[in-house]
């Protein structure tokens, strides 16, 4: 036996009695300590403990047995206390038991008469302790289970996806808050309740289908419209370790936003397709007319048509590169290097680049720099050049011959402001509101001949946006337009 021997305290004022007990008990393998009176017994118990059992005489000097029993019991309720007395009466026995004694041994006794109650007592003690340990263990387990359960149910309830669980009897046994929210009729269902009680047929169907799984894991998925939202419902069977279907779990995910994105994406693709197809049709149309020879020999008119076709082809090419730039910005692949930059010098470069175009249309292009590099902006040079050039280019396009396009650079609080103002054909309020929309182009008699991709201003706005800047436009038909870009300074 690897267990240490049980320790027994013998308290008796009679030397012969103490020694007699010690011998009998030691011979049985117990470890025995003795004390000659109640007080000494108490001291020994406190200092030399713990003891598994105590044999206590009732009549002792200094502290009587009953008092000692009470104290020992208080100190260690697990210690088995046996009263050893020559005055065994019912009354004292009852009294001793009340104070915590387990049994009593009347004097005189044979070794067996001593050993049997001691063994029984110790056994009882072991059982008591074990039972208590089991009990504690069980309590702990229960607590753990309860905690795990509540944790699990908290997690399930906090999920943004709806969760429905059915057992193999086709009864709904669990629904989380999100599911109750998505399927209002299921919120009031008592659990468990038949799956057929669910009003949403598609959800019912996917769960039923999952329950019908014959073997192996599977996922039944269906898009379901509920109210104004679209949900992806995924149901899977739950298997027993033996392989039998135990039930099914359905997860309802709101994919409304995804669906909207999908629609927006296909609309964009469709718009791009249209924007590409129109110039292609124009180019092909011109070539058809020329090649058919139907229009007769008119070199000058043919040349004009070829020039138009070439222009459309060029616009098509810039459309494609602008699309690529836009995509690059949107996917974050567009690398900008923000450095302290004199925006006035960038504006001057842009004006230089546009001077020829302006001259060809007899448009005066002027620049005024009130900022003169006093406070640099934090921006990408190429991006800023592209923004200002685009705006000037646009202004020239929509200004009639003999008009004026002016660029002004000035301070505006923590921003540098670049203003591009023209006295051209201007925009109606509706046109102005859509000026930055993809592929939006003002279409009227005056703009019919103006080439453009409809992406220039969209690109400008995106570039300004990624610099945490702002762009505004003020315009009136026949009065002209004013674009103002604000870029944060260093």
């Amino acid at each position: 036996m690897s267990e240490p021997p049980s320790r027994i305290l013998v308290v008796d004022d009679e030397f012969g009695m103490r020694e007699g007990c010690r011998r009998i008990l030691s011979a049985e393998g117990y470890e025995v300590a003795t004390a000659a009176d109640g007080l000494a017994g108490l001291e020994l118990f406190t200092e030399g403990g713990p003891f598994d059992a105590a044999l206590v005489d009732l009549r002792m000097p200094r502290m009587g047995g009953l008092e000692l029993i009470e104290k020992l019991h208080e100190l260690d309720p697990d210690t088995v206390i046996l009263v050893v007395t020559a005055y065994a009466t019912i009354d004292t026995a009852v009294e001793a038991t009340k104070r915590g004694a387990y049994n009593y041994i009347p004097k005189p006794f044979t070794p067996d008469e001593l050993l049997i109650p001691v063994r029984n007592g110790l056994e009882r003690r072991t059982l008591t302790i074990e039972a208590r340990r089991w009990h504690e263990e069980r309590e702990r387990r229960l607590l753990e289970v309860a905690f795990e359960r509540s944790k699990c149910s908290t997690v399930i309830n906090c999920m943004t996806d709806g969760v429905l669980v059915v057992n193999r009897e086709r009864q709904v046994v669990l629904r989380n808050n999100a599911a109750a929210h998505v399927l209002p009729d299921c919120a009031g269902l008592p659990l468990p309740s038949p799956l057929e009680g669910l009003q949403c047929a598609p959800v019912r169907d996917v769960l039923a289908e999952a329950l019908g799984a014959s073997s192996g894991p599977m996922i039944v998925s269906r898009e379901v419209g509920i109210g104004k939202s679209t949900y992806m419902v995924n149901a899977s069977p739950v298997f027993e370790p033996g392989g039998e279907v135990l039930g099914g779990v359905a997860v309802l995910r709101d994919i409304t936003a995804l669906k909207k994105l999908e629609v927006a994406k296909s609309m964009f693709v469709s718009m791009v397709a249209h924007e590409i197809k129109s110039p292609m049709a124009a180019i092909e149309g011109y070539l058809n007319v020329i090649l058919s020879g139907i229009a007769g020999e008119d070199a000058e008119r043919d040349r004009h048509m070829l020039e138009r076709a070439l222009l459309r082809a060029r616009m098509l090419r810039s459309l494609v590169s602008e699309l690529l730039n836009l995509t690059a910005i949107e996917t974050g692949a567009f690398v900008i290097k923000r450095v302290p930059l004199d925006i006035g010098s960038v504006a001057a470069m842009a004006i230089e680049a546009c001077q020829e175009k302006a001259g060809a249309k007899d448009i005066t292009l002027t620049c005024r720099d009130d900022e003169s590099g006093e406070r640099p902006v934090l921006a990408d040079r190429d991006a800023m050049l592209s923004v200002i050039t685009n705006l000037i280019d646009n202004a020239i396009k929509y200004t009639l011959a003999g008009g004026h396009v002016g660029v002004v650079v000035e301070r505006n609080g923590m921003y540098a402001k670049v203003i591009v103002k023209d006295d051209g054909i201007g925009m109606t309020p509706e046109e102005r509101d859509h000026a930055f929309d993809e592929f939006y182009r003002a279409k009227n008699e005056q703009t019919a001949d103006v080439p453009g991709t409809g992406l220039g201003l969209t690109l400008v706005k995106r570039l300004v946006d990624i610099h945490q800047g702002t762009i505004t436009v003020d315009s009136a038909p026949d009065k002209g337009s004013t674009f103002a870009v604000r870029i944060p300074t260093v």
Partner: protein
Amino acid sequence: MTGDVPLILVVDDDHDFLVMTRRVLESAGYAVACATSPCEALDTMAQAKPDLVITDLMMRALDSGFSFARKIKSDARFADVPVLLITAVASRLGYDFTPDKVDDLAEMHVDGFFEKPVLPNELLAQVEALIGLPVQEGKP
């Protein structure tokens, strides 16, 4: 003798389409007027009634060609004017505008439908079928 030359009104917000269509039609001897929007076209029609209208489908709005055609057909003055619809995009956003049957054309209030680009010969053949050839000046 301009009164004898059939007048064709071409409506499109694509400048180049107006240029090339005018070229084709004029080469065949028709008189051509152009408009860049249904609105402008209706103004022009009020001044001189055309013998044929050729219109783009998608101008400002997705279906502006359709509503323009409907307007023409429901106007007592122009109900007899044939309308030819020409578009670069016959289907868009899930809509499919391509007519399958002759009945579809009537539903769309048009007398003919083409996808851009139209071959000059095909366009002229369709125009001739609808309004006949122009009487050549200087010929009997």
